[in-house]
């Protein structure tokens, strides 16, 4: 891999300048040891084209800001090594999300809207009492909640999802996973019927066509198929009027 010259074909478009049509622009770069798409894009911007727009924050695969389509697949650019790719690397912005410019998309607004729709906070009647010891929790449950909360909202699952690409209001795997996170949390006092209101529709758990690109593309390797099955089964039984305990143990952990 030493001494390769890489060719980057990068999507360019500024929505504020619709008169300039979307186009592909080519940049050449000499590959270095350990080069990631993060390193490469910064080199291109600093040495060749200071107007190039793309997003990075943590550059360590924990913040979720740098997802883009790399040679046809939604991936985190920060942890994609150029050595794993052919000489020609094609970069596109994620679909579904609103384009800000070039490779930069507005995942923030999309995920905020999702969180508000699913009321993604612990619904509790309890208030904090500073004189009291914390309420106890089984460590296994704490770990289960954490497993469901590991999503970094990068948008890879949404970008890869056929339903999300054709239906604006579809919650997608990230949304369904988000609901599952609160379903397993004993502190959340929502009833099963209330959850049904949130995800028991075509925009929620029943809109999925089962193509499973979400699961294939999740850089955190979250068990998204499992989460969907968990939420669907729970929601279906509520819809059919089957009485059940509020908390069903997830099949992960």
């Amino acid at each position, binding site marked *: 891999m030493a001494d390769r010259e890489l060719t980057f074909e990068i999507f360019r478009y500024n929505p504020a300048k619709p008169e300039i049509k979307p186009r592909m622009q080519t940049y050449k770069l000499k590959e270095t040891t350990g080069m990631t798409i993060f390193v490469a894009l910064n080199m291109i911007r600093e040495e060749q084209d200071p107007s190039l727009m793309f997003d990075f924050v943590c550059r360590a695969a924990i913040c979720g800001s740098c997802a883009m389509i790399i040679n046809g697949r939604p991936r985190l650019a920060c942890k994609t090594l150029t050595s794993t790719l052919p000489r020609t690397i094609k970069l596109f912005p994620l679909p579904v999300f609103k384009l800000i410019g070039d490779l930069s998309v507005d995942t923030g607004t999309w995920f905020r809207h999702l969180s508000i729709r699913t009321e*993604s906070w612990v619904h509790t009647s309890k208030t904090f009492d500073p004189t009291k010891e914390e309420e106890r929790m089984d460590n296994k449950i704490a770990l289960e909640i954490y497993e469901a909360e590991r999503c970094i909202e990068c948008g890879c699952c949404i970008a890869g999802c056929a339903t999300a690409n054709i239906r604006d209001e579809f919650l997608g795997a990230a949304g369904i996973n988000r609901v599952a996170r609160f379903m397993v949390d004993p502190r959340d006092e929502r009833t099963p019927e209330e959850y049904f209101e949130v995800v028991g529709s075509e925009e929620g758990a029943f809109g999925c066509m089962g193509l499973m690109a979400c699961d294939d593309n999740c850089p955190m390797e979250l068990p998204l198929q499992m989460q969907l099955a968990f939420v669907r089964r729970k929601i279906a039984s509520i819809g059919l009027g089957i009485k059940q305990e509020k908390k069903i143990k997830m099949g992960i952990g």
Partner: protein
Amino acid sequence: MSIYQTHITDVLIVGAGLAGERIAVEAAMHGHDVILLSLVPPRRSHSTAAQGGMQASLGNCAMGEGDNPDVHFADTVKGSDWGCDQEVARLFVENAPLAVREMAIWGVPWSRVVAGQRKLPDGRVIEEKKEKEGLITARDFGGTAKWRTCYTADGTGHTLQYTMDSMVLKLGITVHDRTEAISLIHDGEQCIGVVARCLRTGDLRVYIAKTTVICTGGYGRLYSASTNAVINEGNGMFVALNTGVVPLGNMEAVQFHPTGMVPVWILITEGARGDGGYLLDKNLYRFMPDYEPKKKELASRDVVSRRMTQHMRAGYGVDSPYGPHLWLDIRHLGAQHINTNLREIANIARNFAGVDPVKDLIPVRPTQHYSMGGVRTNKDGAAYGLKNLFAAGEAACWDLHGFNRLGGNSLAETITAGRIIGKKVAEYTKDATISYNYKLVDDAVKEQENRIKALVHGWNGKENVYEVRNAMEKNLMDYVGIFRNGKDLQKAVDNLREVYHRSLKIGLRSNGEGPNPELAQALRMPGMVRLALCIAYGALMRTESRGSHAREDYPKRDDVNWLKRTLAYWPDGADLPELKYEPVKITELPPGDRGYGESSAQSKGGK
């Protein structure tokens, strides 16, 4: 008159990481209107990256038994090398347990005590008590007398930030993400808000508030090698400094970590060396035993960092396109150990450097990690110099950390300070009114518009923003690093002054239209170099060694002359900060031996 959107609110918070959001939550709970500004969606904030945990003396786990705020206080003051404000440290240690428990009600899945026996890696057997089962547990961290660091698996920062952000959502707090505050609006006495730039469109906006709070995190990205996120450029600090009346405290106090991985500077945790990994130079020679025969690679963080730097300076670094580095070797631990016990390290090495530590060496170099300095505030979080202005978290010098922060005290500070200062902000805002001359606002916007025009048209010069930036980063890295001495620091100050003048002559190569990234960088550049000068000049003047500030030419801590805090001001038209000093408040624990580190051991018995 210019055309721009104006937003008016009670409390304006710049920065939506943990400190900013905690203050927002407190202010909103007190009934105030709040707007949060953030460079990125709040959940992408650098707070999210903190994996370790937050210190709070709950004393629930076996190894934490008998812990209390007094023990936490002593650890924090010693850790700071007596540089911290002890009133603040006291306030912090008393409130940290409340902050942790409150986050539990709001949704953080803290790891919990599991009853029963457990064998530690060093062979000791501990027993967690049945009556403590289910309470919040803690893990071990350097510099603490008890196991005190509360955590959620390996994602403490993530779960804290997501939970805090869920409270922001629940309370309906307004968040303007992809928005950057580029200057404070003030009349020299009071702050009335900020001029901001929308990073979606490039448009300027005005925010007017009774109270403005700076919570923008650290300035790691002033250094070429930092473990920090790319957004940590010290924005809040330099917009405060640029007012000329708000000082920054202790900017010379910069913490380094020995093993940032080259070239992405992601942290390789101490676990690698703890399990028997060692450091090699370009000749594949293990050099640490020559410098530290007893502790070798396991000397304290600052000591190992200093030795590595010394060795590279002597010409034993490995050359790379990203500068010289050393090797971390864990190959001898074997595939099974690496792939199980050191799995995270192995994954990071494979994903980010493309090396397999089972058969390859890992390139590492000491890397900037944390900034103890920041906007100087009193114990209520109120900034010096301007009314209506507050600061909290890593952006502030509150001053909890003095000259060295303990692991687990940074996350703890964000939330605990947010809780304490949030209440103060809420009280302050209740009695505050805004009155200002509109011309003040208009002039503030015009000044920024003119800066942008000058950059776009190259009216002041044609300096390349990235070259200026690289020169700044290199000077800090080479001369204001882990080891410092008068000669190098003087060189840094001289060079950075020159870089500063270049930063005033930047001209864009692109057109600067819309959310142009080159323009964003160019707007920040003079402020960043000012911060760099505050660090370098403060370090040059401080002729002692204290905590992370290690002077080769002044290796001892000097309490007689230097038990004081540096305050850096930036007078109008200057090319160097003006330094003033104030005494460090000692209320409970008089200066003594830390019990570790070279400088304090030598300072025993007087100095």
